[in-house]
Structure formats: structure tokens, C-alpha cells
């Protein structure tokens, strides 16, 4: 786990353009951003502002038209598919708005998935149990996603995102499909991960209430950073 204050993800001059010439769309126009360990960053903006695009680039899921991304000190654009795969296994965690879990696996197996894929059996069982406990779903660990409520599914997703002790967790509208009670639970979990585990979290959201939980809010508009607020 990197020490506090160290930069875990950094983007420089990030630009993403779709299409060519006059018909092209500039989703992102030169964004610089640093994410530090132990911080909760919310990225906000109206639809079309490029916030999801920014997150995709920072997570290594997409390649920028221009600019560089470093995760844990590694320059992402130098990695081939195998390298990216390894990166996703070890250094990055994901939580989405919906469809986070593999339908045919139990909650337990879903949480363990990153470790199973990496082939690291050592200590896996305890880690999984600890996380299920942290999200208060120990009694539901043998249930399939179809047997869990939306909120419970998101909690399992969070546990899974944290299981591999990633350098950073990216959350894309994690409370988008949840009612207010479940949303609060999820946000509280994420907050706890930052406070107690020193986890770095980057959350894209359009919900101000959700953003209120974050340490820092980065606002985007038309592909550029227009404001930065610290809580």
C-alpha cells in the first residue's frame, strides 16, 4: 500500500477525440489531474462534459488521443494487452452503476474473482471473509446476485473492488440505481475504505449529495476542468 500523500494515478494533457475532422467530437480537451492515496475524489459535470471519458482514460480502459496516464508509477501507454490485464488485476478496482457481478457465481465467489483470476490462493479466503464482513454481507455469501437487492449487489461489488488491495478504485455512478437508504450505505462504505484503509477512490457522479462525501470535487465542462473544490 503506497504511503499517504503519494500520487497513485496521474494524467497529463489528456485529450480524447472521437471521429475525424469536422465530424469529430472532442470529449476531453487537455486535462491534468493527480489522485493521491487516501483521498476520495468526485468527478462531476453535466452529461457530455467528459467525466466518464476521463475516468476510462485514468483507469486504462481507453487510450487517449494525446496525453499520458500513470498508474502506480507505471506509464499505461507503454503496456500491451497482457500488461494492461495484469494492471487491472493488481492495481485497479472497479464499481459500476449496474451489472457488476457475474450472475452464475455466488457473492463469495464474486468477491474472490480478482484473486482467482490472478491465481493467488494464499490468504484469499481470509481476505474475502474480512471484506464480506466489512460490507455486512457475511450471511449472504452463498447467494447469487439475482437473490440480492440492488444495494446488496453494490456492496458485494465494493468488496470485490477492494479485495486485491488496489492502488485506486474507480466508481462510475455507484449509487445511480439505488434508493436513498442504500445509497447512503454504499457511500458510507466507500468513505470508510478511504478513512480506515487509506484507499484512493475516484467516483464519477452527477449527484451532489454523493459528491458531498468526497474530499475533493473536480468539475468538468466541455472536456475541461472548470473548478476544483476541497471539502
Amino acid at each position, binding site marked *: 500500500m503506497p504511503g499517504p500523500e503519494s500520487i497513485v494515478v496521474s494524467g497529463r494533457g489528456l485529450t480524447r477525440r472521437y471521429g475525424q475532422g469536422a465530424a469529430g467530437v472532442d470529449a476531453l480537451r487537455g486535462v491534468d489531474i493527480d489522485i493521491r492515496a487516501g483521498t476520495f475524489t468526485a468527478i462531476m459535470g453535466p452529461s457530455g462534459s467528459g467525466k466518464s471519458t476521463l475516468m*476510462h482514460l485514468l483507469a486504462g480502459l481507453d487510450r487517449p488521443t494525446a496525453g499520458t496516464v500513470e498508474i502506480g508509477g507505471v506509464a499505461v501507454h507503454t503496456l500491451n494487452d497482457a500488461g494492461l*490485464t495484469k494492471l487491472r488485476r493488481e492495481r485497479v478496482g472497479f464499481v459500476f452503476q449496474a451489472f457488476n457481478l457475474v*450472475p452464475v457465481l455466488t457473492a463469495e465467489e464474486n468477491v474472490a474473482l480478482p484473486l482467482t483470476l490472478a491465481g493467488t490462493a494464499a490468504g484469499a479466503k481470509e481476505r474475502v471473509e474480512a471484506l464480506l464482513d466489512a460490507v455486512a454481507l457475511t450471511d449472504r455469501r452463498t447467494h447469487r446476485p439475482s437473490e440480492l437487492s440492488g444495494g446488496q449487489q453494490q456492496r458485494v461489488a465494493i468488496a470485490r473492488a477492494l479485495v486485491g488491495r488496489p492502488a485506486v478504485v474507480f466508481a462510475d455512478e455507484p449509487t445511480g440505481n439505488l434508493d436513498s437508504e442504500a445509497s447512503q450505505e454504499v457511500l458510507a462504505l466507500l468513505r470508510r475504505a478511504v478513512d480506515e484503509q487509506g484507499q484512493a477512490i475516484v467516483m464519477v457522479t452527477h449527484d451532489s449529495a454523493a459528491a458531498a462525501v468526497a474530499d475533493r470535487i473536480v468539475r468538468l465542462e466541455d472536456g475541461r476542468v472548470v473548478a476544483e473544490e476541497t471539502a
Partner: protein
Amino acid sequence: MIRLALRGLRARRLRSLLTALAVLLGVAMISGTFVLTDTIKAAFDDLFVAQNRGADAVVTGRLAVDSDFTTPPSLDAAVLERVARLPEVARAAGQLNDRAAVVGSDGEVVQTGGAPTVAATYMPPPFTAIEIKTGRPPANDGEVALDADTAQEEGFEVGDRVRVAADGPVREFTLVGLATFGTQSSLGGATVVVFDLASAQRIFDKPNQVDFAFVAAREGVTDLDLKRAIQGVLPADAQVRTSAEQAEALSDDIGEALGFLTTGLLAFGFIAVLVGAFLIFNTFSITIAQRTRELALLRMLGASRRQVLTSVLAEALVLGMLGAVAGLVAGFGIARAIDALFGVIGLDLPSTDAVVATRTVVVCLVTGIVVTIAGALGPALRATRVTPIEALREGMAPPRGTFGRRAAPVLAAIAILAGVAMTAFGLLSDGGGETAKLITAAGGAVVLVLGIALLSPALVRPAARVLGAPLVRVTALVGRLARENATRNPGRTAVTSAAMMIGLAVVLFVTVFANGLRERAERILEQTFAGDLAVLHEDGFSTIPAAVAGAVGRVPGVAAVTGIRAAEAEVAGASGDTFGNGVDFATLPAVYRFDWVDGEDALLGRLGPRDVLMEEGTAESARLAVGDAARIAGVREGRFTVRGIYRDDGILTGFTLPVAAFDELFDEKRIVSALVDLEPGADAGRAAAAVEAALEPFPEARARNQAGLEEETGAQITQILGLFYALLAMSVLISAVGIVNTLSLSVHERTRELGLLRAIGMTRRDVRRLIRYESVITAAFGAVLGLVLGLFFAWVVTRALAGEGIVFAVPAAQVAVLLVLALLVGVAAAVLPARKASRLDVLEAVAHE
């Protein structure tokens, strides 16, 4: 990842089962083929061993040609005595074999499909060739025994009077015993009439002759010693084998015949497997497309491409193994079914407990696994190309082709050209090894099919517009929706219909080909048969007594009768065995017109005892022209000069010799047909009735006029066609399963969309109709492609055989019926998915993810 694969299979139970079913059906055909032929071979082997058990050596006449259809020369009783007197011999007994006919309980001659009715004589123990199970062996020329199977079928019991025709008019005998052969109660399905030796020698006019001599050795004498001893006292036209060698020789003959059967049946199995491969490819493609988000999620979480590939292939492997094992077991049922099918057309083959060779198990497992992996490989590779970001996308990304849009048509064009070239080369070129050419042609056919399959997605849009037009006319909205849906994913529609295409192509091919055969047979008869009636055996190809010709000749109104004798021979230089004929050239021209290639009618009056007329095919095969010398081997060998070449593949096949020359080579006294010419002005009806009356003592013979002959040949071909249809049923079934599979998956995929349609007011009936129309369009598309392919193959093959006079004749009515049936398959396949679609709960469907 393996666990994921297994869970996935269980969750998608129905889909997995349907896929495994496809593998099962294809493998079952293969398993059934092997089980059937292995069992038959084992049964025959048992039979031969049991029959020869009592003897240590067997003496027979020696043939110049190795054939099952030519009667070897008989042995003189003196030879038997010489053998019996040898110090090494404990006992020797002779047996006579000949042809006979039994009149069944219904007054008609007992037919035994491909096997003739055999007359044999009883030999006492220790010889076990024939054993009397009930009653006692015949003791004089008023008594016979019958094989237990025939007796049971006809309801004969010991003590009954039975009518038997033995080389002459029919006579009545008393049935005194029922015979069994080794472990069987019939000899390979043939009917056997058992006489006592002395009586048989009188009845069949073979005084002091035997056809077989069975020899038992004294204690302490080895089989080889016995054989050597006997060899020393045999004349040149006799040979001796140890009973083990005899059993082996018989077994080899059967093995060869079964080999053809196995290859033929395996061809059908292969087609079924190929169709199954398409189905698997289709199912996996759709499943992978539906699991895009799940796969993307796994990639997002760090699964490598290889892990994804492994997972998908693991699924395929499990399904393949399940299907293969189940198919292996199902093969037993298939073997029984095919056996029953043959029984229907009169071929009663022996059987014992089913034989499952190691080879069968291995081939089935390997086939099942290879087919499933081959079908799933493309989709599996596609699965690895799912990018993690697709997990974040709403809705389903339309699946891209494995090779990309541009490569497919080019590849298709190459495949089609290559396929056409290979097929044409394999079938139409001269020279080169037969097997190699056949494999090239078969391979070409497969490549062509794959090429068309690759090209078909491009054809879906225009085809659907045409095929869907009548549906749009009936119901505007539903028809249009159905048409749009079929074209939405041309790749998937094409692959689904590919199974139907292959099935129909093969069915059409055999149909058109059979029709070509029928027309050819008719044409030949028209050209060559100049007589009014032909007297043949009931079954159309067995021999009848020569006395028939004499009896018919005496009928008032008959101007001339010619008997035609036939036997199998080897013409030096020609491939395979040839049937040769012996005729009386003086009387022949009245009833037979030669279709000359090189020769003229005037020749017939000038032919001498060393002359031979060759049929075109034989002459070509042996590279003989008029004036050349031909060496022909039957029971004995002889040299003849070719005086003319004619064309005929119906009545006088192979070659034709004057009777005197024929008798030099063969010992066949019976005739294969008697051609009758009525007096000009004779009342055809009355004359025919009179001929029938004259044939009363010969129950196995029947007279037919030209129309009757043509009808019979046609009927025979139709029967075999029916057999082919039954064997192809498996492939058609798989393609139907394929359509059902695709439709259900498609319905599931479009749950939300269908829910929406219902929500805005589409009735359940219209939803059902929608699915049905889509199915029909898919089936029709496959049928049209199948029509083109089938006609192409039929054309190429008939061109290849044009030298034998087969024409390309398309039976329009039958083809139309087949097309309609294909559409009905489409309708039937839609029933279940349509019902499911119409039963969707609207609210659930709209909220479906």
C-alpha cells in the same frame, strides 16, 4: 475459469442441452453404423466358425474367378472316396448346393431380399454345417427340412406338406425337420431347403457329384497335415482349405461387402456431424454475443485473453463429451433402427449381442470433441476480443464477423471456386486413382458448402426481401417486422439456415440422381427390349430353371423364346467383376435390339464359338476394341475375339457370348431371363394369360411386359431412395433443432423488444406469427440455397456418369414437395419459441436487462 464454464452451462441448461443434442445425433449415427456392421460381422463370423467346426478341412471346386455369384464346378464322388480312404481321414462327407424356391403359405414364392434360396444337403455329425433342431433330417426324395426362421415366418410345422421348386417344376415334399446353422436359425437371412444327398443328386441332375466335401481328421492329425494329404489326391479343378482357412475366406468376403455398407452409412453420419458443427457454431456465437457484458467484466477484473478462451473452450469440451457419450449409447438404438430399415426392404441380416469395439468408442469420443471444439472455436476467439470497456456499454454490441466484414466475401469466393474446381476435377477427370479422385470430389463438396455458407450472409438481405414478400402481403406489419428481424443479423440467419441448406441439398441430390437412374433404366429398356414379354425371377435378378424357356416356348401364340444365362466373370484388364451373358444368337434378334457402338446386326449371324460381344463400359475399362483378344475367366479361363461393341446396362450387361462358349467358361445351367416374342397378330392379353398358366409349375418365375419391367425397376430405385431418406432424416432433424435453438435464443435476446410490442398493443397471436414468419424465412433461405447446391451436385455427378447413360432429369413434382416440406420444418420449429414469446409477461419483459 473452469468453474465459471461449468456454472454457465448449468445456468443455461436448455441451451446446453440442445447443443449437446446436436452432437449426440451426429455421433449416434456414427456409433450406430459401427455397432451395426461390427455386430453383423461378428454374427457372420460366429456362423462360419460354428458351421465349420465339425470339419477340419473343406474341399471345393476351384474357380478361375474369385466371385460369390459364380457356381464352382462340382466334385466327382470318386474324389470324395479317394479322400475318405486317406489314412489321415476319420470321416468325409459330401454336400450338394444348388438353387431352389419355396412356395410360402400365401401361395407366393418366399422372397429373401438380397439372398437367394439355397438348396443344401444334410451331413451327419460330426459335421455341423447344418443341424436339425426339431424333427429329423430328410431321408428320401419325398422329404425336406427347412431353416427354422422361414418355417416360423410361413407357419410351417413338422409334418406339413410344402411345395418346393428345385431346378424344374414345383413339387410337393413333406417337411420332416427344422434346421439351424451354427448359432443362427437362418443363414444370413437366406431361405435354406435341406435334402438328403442321394435325392438331391437325382433332383438337381448331378449324378455322383458333390459341391463340398467336409473332412474330419483322425486323432492326432493336424489340420495342416490333413490338408497336405488331401492336396495329394485332388484333381486340378479342386482345392482344399483347412476349416479355419475356409471360415476366414468366407469372413473376408463378408468383410468386403460390409466395408461398402460401413462406408455408405458413415457418409450419412458424416453429413449429420457436419450439420451439427454448424449448429454448435451458431449456438456459441449467439451465446457469446449475449454474454458480451459478462465477458467484458471478467476482462475488466483482470482475466487474460487466454483465460477467456479456456473458459469458452471448456464449455465446448464438456458439451462435446456429454454429447459424444450419449451419442455412443444412442448408437445402439440407431443400429437397431437401421437393421429394421434394411429388414423392410427385405435384407434380413443376422445379429448377435451388440458389439462395441474400442475403435467405435474412440471414434465417437474424438468426433464429438473435435466437432464441438471446431464449431466453438470461432466464437471462442471472438470472445477473447471483447474489450473491457464493453462492460460499461448499454445494450448489446452487434457481433462482428470473425474475420471482419471485408475478408469474408473474398474468402467465400475463393472457397466456392476451389470447391467447384475440386468437385469437378474429382468427378470429371480421367485417369488418376479412383480413391484419390473420390476424396477430392468429396472434399470439394465440403469446401463448396463452406464457401456458400460464408457467402450466404451477403445474400440474406436481398433474399429476405423476396422471400418475405408473400408474408408482407398477408400481414403487413408482422411480415415487415419478420423480414427486418431476419436481416438484422444476416450472419446469424445465414448460419442457422446453413444446416437446412446442407440437409436439403443432400436430399435433393439423391432425389434427382435417383430420378436420373430411373429414366436411364427406362430408356435402356425401351431401346433394347424388342420382345413382348420377359420372364424373370420374382425378385428381378435371381436365376430361374432353364426349363422355363421350354415351357413358355410351347405356349400357342409365342413365336420365339430366348433364354439368357448369366454368371460373374473377370475380364482381363477390366476393373472389378463383370457379369457375362450366354445367348442363342439365332433366336435373340427377335427379342433384343443391339444398341451398337461398333458393329451391326448382320454380325450376329456370323458369330462363332470363339467370338464375344463387349458392352461399352467393359470394353472401355479393359481397353478393348473390335478385333482385340479378350481373356475371360469364369469357372475356367478362355480367350475370345471381340467382334462388336454395344451399349446396354440393363439386360445384356458386361459381355455376351454364344451359348457354346458360355458353357466352356461356366457351369451355370439356370437362366436369368427368358425373353418372349409373340406372334404378330396374337392377342397380347390372351397370350400373356397363357404364358402365366405355363409358368404355374415354376412359382418363382413371373412374366412381365415392358411397362411392367419399367415399373419394377422404378419401384426398386424408389425403395432405395426411401432408405436414403430415412438415413438423412437425422441430418434434417439436427437442422430443425438448430432452427429451434436459434429462435429461442433470439426470443430471449429480444425480450425487452417483444415486451414493448405487446405493451403497445400487439396481440399474442401476432407475436406468435412474427416468430413463425421469421422461422419460415430462415428455412426458406436455407431451402433455396440447398436447392441450388443439390441441383449443382446432381448435375456434376450425372455429367460424370454420362458415359453410363445417366441423365440429369429433375423430378419437378418431387422437388416442389421437398421445398414445401422444408418450409413446414420452419413452421414446426417455430412452435415452441413462438409460444414462449407470446407468453412473456409484459411488465417483466420491459424491465428485463
